[in-house]
C-alpha cells in the first residue's frame, strides 16, 4: 500500500535536510508511528495526519538534530576558545613588535584573510539551522584553523624567532586546538 502524500512529503524534507542515515533513522520512527495509528483502526490519511501531529514538524526535528550535531558542538567550543588562543598570540606579537618584521604584505593579508574566513565559517556552523551547512562549514573551518594553528608555532617558535614562556603557552594552546580540530573533523566525518 502506498504511503499517503503527507508521509512522503515528510520524508522528502528529512532527506533534503539531513544526511542519509539520520534521515533514514527519523523516517523509520515516523513510519512506525504511522503504522501504529493504522493498526488502531484509522484510515491511511487520518493515520498519516495523526502520525505527523504526534511526531512533530519535520523542520523542528531537523533543526533539533542539527543543534546536537558534532559539527555544531565543535564550532561552538572553538568560537568560545578563540579569544583565549587569539589573545595569547596577540600579546606575544604585540610584545615582539611584530609589525616591524620584514614579512611580505601578501603573507600578512593571506593570514588575516584566512583567519577572517575561518571565524565566519565557525559562526555559520554554530548558528545555521541546516545540518549540511553546519557540517560543511565546520569541516572547512576546522581545516583552516588547524593550518593557522600549525603555521604560527611552525614559523615563529621552531626557528627560534620568539622565545619565552608566553610564546610557549601560545604555541601549546595552538597545538591543543589543532589536535581538537583534527579529532572533531574525524568525528564529523564518522557520523
Amino acid at each position, binding site marked *: 500500500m502506498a504511503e499517503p502524500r503527507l508521509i512522503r512529503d515528510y520524508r522528502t524534507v528529512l532527506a533534503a535536510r539531513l544526511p542519509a542515515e539520520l534521515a533514514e533513522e527519523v523516517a523509520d520512527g515516523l513510519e512506525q*508511528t504511522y503504522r501504529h495509528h493504522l493498526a488502531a483502526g484509522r484510515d491511511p490519511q487520518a493515520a498519516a495526519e495523526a502520525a505527523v501531529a504526534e511526531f*512533530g*514538524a519535520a523542520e*523542528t*526535528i531537523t533543526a*533539533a538534530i542539527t543543534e546536537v550535531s558534532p559539527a555544531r558542538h565543535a564550532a561552538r567550543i572553538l568560537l568560545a576558545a578563540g579569544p583565549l588562543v587569539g589573545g595569547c598570540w596577540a600579546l606575544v606579537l604585540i610584545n615582539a613588535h611584530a609589525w616591524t618584521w620584514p614579512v611580505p604584505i601578501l603573507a600578512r593579508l593571506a593570514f588575516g584573510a584566512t583567519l577572517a574566513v575561518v571565524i565566519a565559517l565557525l559562526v555559520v556552523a554554530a548558528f545555521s539551522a541546516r545540518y549540511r551547512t553546519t557540517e560543511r562549514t565546520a569541516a572547512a573551518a576546522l581545516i583552516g584553523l588547524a593550518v593557522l594553528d600549525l603555521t604560527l608555532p611552525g614559523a615563529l617558535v621552531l626557528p627560534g624567532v620568539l622565545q619565552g614562556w608566553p610564546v610557549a603557552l601560545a604555541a601549546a594552546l595552538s597545538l591543543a586546538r589543532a589536535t581538537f580540530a583534527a579529532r572533531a573533523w574525524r568525528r564529523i566525518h564518522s557520523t
Partner: protein
Amino acid sequence: MKAEALKGHLDGMLLAALEDGPRHGYAVIEYLREASGGRLDLPTGTIYPALHRLEQAGLVEGSWSVTGGRRRRSYVLTRAGRQALVGRRQEWRTFASVVGAVLEAKPWPNPA
C-alpha cells in the same frame, strides 16, 4: 503531561528506557508511551535529537543493525550512562519529596 513540564527530565527518562537493554528510537517512544500510560504529551520525533545529544555526551552508544529485515539504529547505555541514570533517579526523588512536602504542607482548600 506537556513537554514544558518535562524539561530537564527527558534525558533521565530516555536513560531509563535503555536500562533493560538496547532499543531503537521507535522502541524508546513505545516504552515512554507504555510506561507513562500514554500521558506524555511531547512531539515523539524530538526523541531522536535527544538520543543524539546523549550519544554526544557519551551516555549512550548508537549502532546500526538489521532487525526483522529492517536497518535500524539502536542505542545502549554506556557505563557513564548507567551512572548518570542512578544520579538522575536520586535527583528526582529529592525533587519530588521537596516539592511534595511543600505542596502538601497545608490541606487543599475546599472550593465549596
